């Protein structure tokens, strides 16, 4: 019975009558004058290492960064305006072949011209790497030429009448060249010369405009001028397995202009006259074939170049219409003819059959072939209503739900019959259908009707549903039926059991719009206002706009066969990766127009996701959604320094100042330029990266320093794992901050110090030399003077020595005193040769007058004074017969002042003498003594006493006419008594252990201690003591000590 029914269903197209033709369309985004492309004839396409697209036109080369095309012409140093070929070299440079034989090279932002000279004059149709840093180029009329990396050209090989179009390097130094007469095999020798091996005429005799090979494959595809695509393999130097691709599919006569290999090995073909093809090949058989042409969205059948970029975007160079990018290679639109038929609200699958509901009809595609659709319409009972739900039984019977007329189901003849459910208005509003065995589940505004051949059940809130407005029904892998309720949550029906999950957020119940189950059994819900929820361990988890959904308002949900959950929004869809929960959104960039209403979504058996919209059907071939995981290449495109444009290519060096700096950067995404995000950091200024969706960064007041601008780019759902664009910026330090300046200053300072030191040294040396010279002069002078002095000294000394003799001659002899007074001694030690101290004695009868004098000064002056004193003593005592010591001193004083007054001009001189003078009556041993500034010791009766003289000197500074009187000391002596007279030489002598003066008291002690000794011994003892006392000290004065014993 079921087989019969199926056969009947196969006849449905006949029963249904007219089958409207549906057009499969692709959405393309043109790149033309609006984007800056100034010429609509594109001859070549290539993507450079930065991800930017280079476009070769008849009026210059364009560079497309995803948003804008920047055109370059001869004004930018392009060799020619007509660009016939483009080759992105491995070193990052881009090579351009021109129509009149010129070759341009773009590197680091500037163009230069290859030195083609007279070698080429015709179109450079192809350029390839030679594997050694150079390039081979096919010059149409000039053969194959070689260009070294520095742009120097040399001829390779040429043939009369042969035009060269394409090149493909092979192993073993072989080179395949496509020419006007087919394929030529060439050999590159070790020295770089090119030799002709043979014409592969068995491959094709047609012009070969393109040659490609799939990475890892030995198969080669040649795109010919009128024989389509020829596939072959080179076995050594011979082609084998020569096959014309797609001959049976009518592709044998294609005028192929370009070939490209897709990300998963598919062959992309650009033709003149037949648009472009994308073919999956299994061997040389076409496994699947997509055609892009004039009628299905490409807008042209002339495609001069094709390119599949690194993001898997497919580009077409539409001849005369500019460039176009297939918005999403996975997206295919099926737009129905007639506006009323475009609003697709329901989709269902069974095997390779797909049905979708439009107003008043159900369209059926068999074997997923959308090119011819069967229409099930009014003739077989489909009501003139919006078909809002579809489901199909295992036996092929189709069920349809309508917006206001209830549900219908095909009978054995294929006609649609109303399913008997409630006839109230709410029950006739069908929102969802599902089949479960022989049961038909109908979701309405009045709960769920479960209709089976045996019975009809009506599930409402009374049975446990959360709400009677049922938006969706879903039978999970466990056979449970899930019911999406409009206001409250979901219910799960298993047998007679109804289990409900209330979904609320902040007290508001969810409006659940759809249910699906992923490959691991997780149940997912779409909600109208609360995003997507899923059950995990009886917990309800969710994602919303905050997690990346395009909107919180989701109208349908489905799991595809590739691990993703899809949900629909107005104007777009969101795709959730089940494993990572990462969300990717799809909207205009992917061909979904912003105002497009997404009604329904379903997954086919092939895993493709189908969306119903108000403008037809959209199929998303998830398997074709192969996107590059590589992040965009980041570039710094412009730098503006305080309003002035600077080249963004190299280090920017600025003079010292504070600058406002704007960096413009770009992460090229040819497919989704709005999805590029950036992060940047100005090293030397920023500590952290700054993330932004803007493509500019501004810095104010950048002062001196070394900076490096770092920029990275990533897609919105990606990480910053790509390259880092760098731009060095140097703001020079003021001169006084610069190391060299500091170094120079230090060096100058050190040099200055050095110079100063050297100058000082030189000055000192000069000074030393001067001093030395002066010293020498002085020394010489001194020596001279010394000699003179020595001479004079000698003379003086001689004189003084002679004077001593005179002085000694004048002074009485000590021995003579001994005769007068036995035992008397005179300790007389002049400090110099001659002495200022002198002694004098004279006997007058029984009286002996003895004087001990110390004249002012010592040495020669003292000697003179002593002589004067001695002479005056003589004169006073002898000639004036004065015999009283005190009178004698008075007279001596008077005479001395008289003598000195007459002899000196100085009226106030202090020259004079201290003297002690005694008179001893030898008979009576009576002592009379008088002293001027002298004391004398008298040892009488064994006791030594000190007798003080007058406290004025002889001479000195008395006024005119003044007479000094001196006291008289009288003492009766006895035999053995001793008298000691002395000058101040001995008491004033420094010495002893403390270098002190001996003083009169010291002398007194000495004499007292030695008083018991005989006079001679006492004299000797005193001499020894004095010598010992003086030690190494200089003698400070003339020393005179007289001792007498009566």
């Amino acid at each position, binding site marked *: 019975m079921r087989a019969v029914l199926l056969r009947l269903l196969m006849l449905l197209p006949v029963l249904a009558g007219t089958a409207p033709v549906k057009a499969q369309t692709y959405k393309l985004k043109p790149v033309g004058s609006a984007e800056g492309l100034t*010429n*609509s*004839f594109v*001859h070549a396409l290539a993507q450079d290492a930065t991800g930017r697209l280079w476009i070769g*036109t*008849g*009026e210059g080369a364009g560079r497309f960064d995803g948003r804008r095309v920047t055109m370059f012409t001869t004004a930018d140093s392009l060799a020619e*305006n*007509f660009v016939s070929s483009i080759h992105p070299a491995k070193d990052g440079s881009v090579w351009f072949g021109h*129509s*009149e*034989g010129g070759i341009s090279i773009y590197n680091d932002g500037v163009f230069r011209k290859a030195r083609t000279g007279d070698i080429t*004059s*015709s*179109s450079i149709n192809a350029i390839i790497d030679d594997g050694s840093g150079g390039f081979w180029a096919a010059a*149409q*009329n000039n053969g194959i030429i070689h260009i070294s990396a520095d742009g120097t050209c040399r001829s390779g090989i040429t043939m009369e009448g042969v*035009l060269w179009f394409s090149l493909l390097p092979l192993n073993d130094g072989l080179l395949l060249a496509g020419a*006007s007469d087919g394929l030529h095999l060439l050999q590159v020798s070790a020295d770089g010369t090119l030799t002709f091996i043979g014409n592969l005429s068995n491959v094709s005799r047609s*012009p070969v405009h393109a040659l490609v090979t799939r990475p890892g494959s030995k198969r080669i595809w040649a795109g010919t001028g*009128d024989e389509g695509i020829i596939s072959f393999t080179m076995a050594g130097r011979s082609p084998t397995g020569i096959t014309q691709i797609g001959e049976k599919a009518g592709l044998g006569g294609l005028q192929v202009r370009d070939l490209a290999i897709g990300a998963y090995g598919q062959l992309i073909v650009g033709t*003149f*006259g037949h648009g472009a093809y994308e073919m999956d090949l299994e061997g040389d058989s076409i496994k699947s074939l997509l055609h892009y042409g004039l009628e299905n969205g490409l807008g042209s059948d*002339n495609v001069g170049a094709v390119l599949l970029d690194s993001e898997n975007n497919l580009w077409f160079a539409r*001849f*005369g219409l500019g460039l176009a990018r297939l918005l999403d290679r996975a997206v295919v639109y099926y737009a129905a003819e007639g506006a009323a038929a475009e609003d697709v609200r329901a989709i269902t699958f069974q095997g390779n059959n797909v049905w979708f509901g439009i107003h008043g009809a159900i369209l059926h595609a068999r074997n997923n072939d959308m090119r011819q659709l069967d229409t099930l319409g009014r003739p077989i009972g489909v009501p003139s209503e919006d078909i809002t739900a579809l489901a199909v039984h295992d036996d092929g019977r189709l069920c349809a739900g309508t917006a206001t007329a209830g549900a219908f189901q095909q009978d054995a003849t294929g006609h649609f019959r109303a399913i008997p459910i409630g006839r109230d208005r709410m029950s006739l509003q069908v929102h969802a259908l599902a089949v479960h065995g022989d049961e038909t589940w109908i979701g309405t505004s009045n709960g769920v009707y479960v209709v089976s051949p045996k019975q009809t059940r009506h599930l409402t809130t009374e049975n446990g549903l959360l709400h009677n407005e049922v938006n969706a029904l879903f039978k999970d892998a466990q056979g449970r039926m899930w019911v999406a309720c409009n206001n409250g949550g979901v219910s799960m029906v298993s047998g007679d059991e109804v289990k409900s999950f209330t979904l609320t957020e902040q007290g508001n119940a969810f409006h659940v719009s759809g249910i699906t189950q992923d490959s691991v059994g997780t149940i997912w819900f779409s909600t109208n206002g609360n995003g997507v929820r899923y059950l995990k361990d009886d917990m309800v988890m969710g994602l919303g706009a905050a997690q990346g959904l395009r909107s919180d308002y989701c109208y349908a949900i489905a799991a595809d066969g590739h691990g993703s959950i899809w949900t629909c929004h107005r104007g777009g869809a969101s795709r959730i990766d089940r494993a990572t929960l990462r969300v990717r959104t799809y909207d205009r960039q992917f061909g979904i127009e912003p105002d497009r209403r997404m009604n329904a979504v379903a997954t086919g058996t092939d895993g493709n996701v189908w969306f119903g919209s108000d403008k037809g059907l959209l199929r998303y071939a998830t398997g074709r959604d192969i996107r590059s995981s590589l992040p965009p290449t980041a570039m710094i495109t412009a730098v503006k320094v305080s309003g002035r444009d600077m080249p963004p290519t190299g280090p920017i060096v600025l003079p010292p100042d504070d600058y406002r700096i704007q960096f413009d950067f770009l992460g090229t995404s040819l497919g989704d330029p709005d999805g590029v995000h950036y992060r940047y950091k100005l090293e030397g200024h920023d500590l952290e990266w700054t993330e932004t969706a803007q493509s500019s960064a501004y810095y104010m007041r950048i002062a001196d320093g070394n900076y490096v601008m770092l920029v990275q780019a990533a897609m919105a759902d990606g990480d910053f794992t790509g390259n880092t664009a760098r731009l060095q910026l140097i703001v020079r330090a003021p001169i006084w901050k610069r190391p060299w300046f500091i170094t120079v200053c230090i060096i100058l300072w050190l040099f200055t110090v050095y110079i100063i030191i050297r100058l000082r040294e030189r000055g000192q040396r000069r000074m030393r030399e001067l001093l030395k010279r002066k010293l020498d002069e002085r020394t010489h002078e001194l020596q001279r003077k010394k000699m003179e002095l020595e001479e004079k000294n000698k003379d003086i000394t001689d004189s003084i020595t002679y004077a001593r003799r005179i002085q000694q001659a004048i002074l009485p002899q000590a021995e003579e005193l001994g005769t007068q007074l036995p035992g008397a001694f005179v300790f007389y030690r002049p400090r110099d040769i001659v002495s200022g101290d002198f002694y004098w004695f004279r006997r007058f009868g029984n009286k002996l007058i003895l004087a001990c004098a110390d004249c002012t000064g010592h040495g020669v002056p003292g000697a003179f004074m002593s002589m004067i004193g001695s002479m005056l003593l003589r004169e006073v005592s002898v000639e004036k017969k004065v015999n009283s010591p005190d009178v004698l001193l008075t007279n001596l004083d008077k005479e001395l002042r008289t003598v000195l007054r007459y002899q000196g001009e100085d009226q106030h001189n202090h020259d004079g003498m201290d003297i002690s003078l005694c008179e001893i009556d030898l008979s009576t041993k009576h002592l009379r003594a008088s002293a001027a500034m002298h004391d004398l010791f008298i040892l009488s009766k064994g006791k030594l006493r000190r007798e003080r003289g007058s406290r004025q000197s002889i001479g000195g500074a008395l006024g005119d006419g003044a007479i000094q009187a001196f006291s008289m000391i009288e003492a009766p002596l006895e035999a053995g008594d001793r008298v000691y007279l002395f000058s101040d030489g001995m008491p004033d002598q420094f010495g002893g252990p403390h270098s002190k003066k001996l003083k009169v008291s010291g002398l007194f002690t000495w004499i007292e201690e030695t008083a018991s000794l005989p006079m001679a011994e006492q004299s000797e003892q005193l001499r020894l003591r004095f010598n010992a006392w003086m030690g190494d000290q200089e003698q400070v004065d003339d020393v005179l000590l007289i001792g007498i014993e009566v």
Partner: protein
Amino acid sequence: MKLTHPLLLALMVASPLLSAAQPVPAAVENIPYLVTFGANSRTSWGDDDFCQTFFFVVPKTTTVPVYIRVYDPDCYGAIDEAKGPFDTVTNFSIYGGKGCISDPAARETEPVGNFRSGNLLATRDFGADAKYDKQWYAFGPFDPSSGEDMPEYGGRVFKMIAQGKSGDDGNLYRYFMSSKPDANEAIEGGNAFTFEYSFRLHDDPAEVSHIYPYVDERVISVKQTNFDWDGDGSIRVVSVAKKGDQVLASGDDQWASSMLPIVKQELNTSLDIRFIKRPDGAIKNNNVVFYVRNQYGALLPFFTVPIGGVPQYKPTIAISKLR
């Protein structure tokens, strides 16, 4: 043979008419077909060098793809002239780019030297292939920028060379420069010209064919040269100053030349060379070659639509007072 600005000015003035210029031959020429014989043919059959070059001009403002369509490119069927079984292969090649017309060899009558100068844009051999008999074949699309930029010719120039590679049959064909591959939709502002015309005459003696050499302001006199006229009537020149001066016509497999003085009124206008067949119509399948040089020996271009329009004789009438 560099055209000067008056030609450009004239082209600009004539531009409204030029959409009609892209059929080659044009309607005003009333020439049924161009003709190129196979390389092994006899010159006595009417083709002196088995090669014909035509130039097509597109304005620089053109933004649509350019197609050059060939009608009946094969050498087979009722249109073409068989000399025994059809065995002729004709090559059609289209050139653009540098040297396409600026190379002197490209502007000469003989296919020698670098007459195939420029970038080859398309080429195809046609033999006896019924597939293309009485059908159009479109070369292209071509980027207008692919032509050689020649402002003095009014835009970018493409060169079409039809050359008999082998065989001895006569290939008769037409051209049309179109913006569509499958229809004759003229390129706006486009034009076509040649320096040596090889064409088939009507068999009907009532039909008069015309070609229109352009006389620039430097011309003092011209020398017309024709080949293999076969004595098929007369060749006359009509201009603003010439009422129909007969020129020396050639016989079978012969060249004939004659001088024509050019008067001031004829400067910057086209001459109308009229090929008037014998009234008896005895000569059939007559092919003829024609070119014109000025006093310097430079070839004059034949525009398919005459620059300045088809010249009309303007007689000088002396008016005397009636007595």
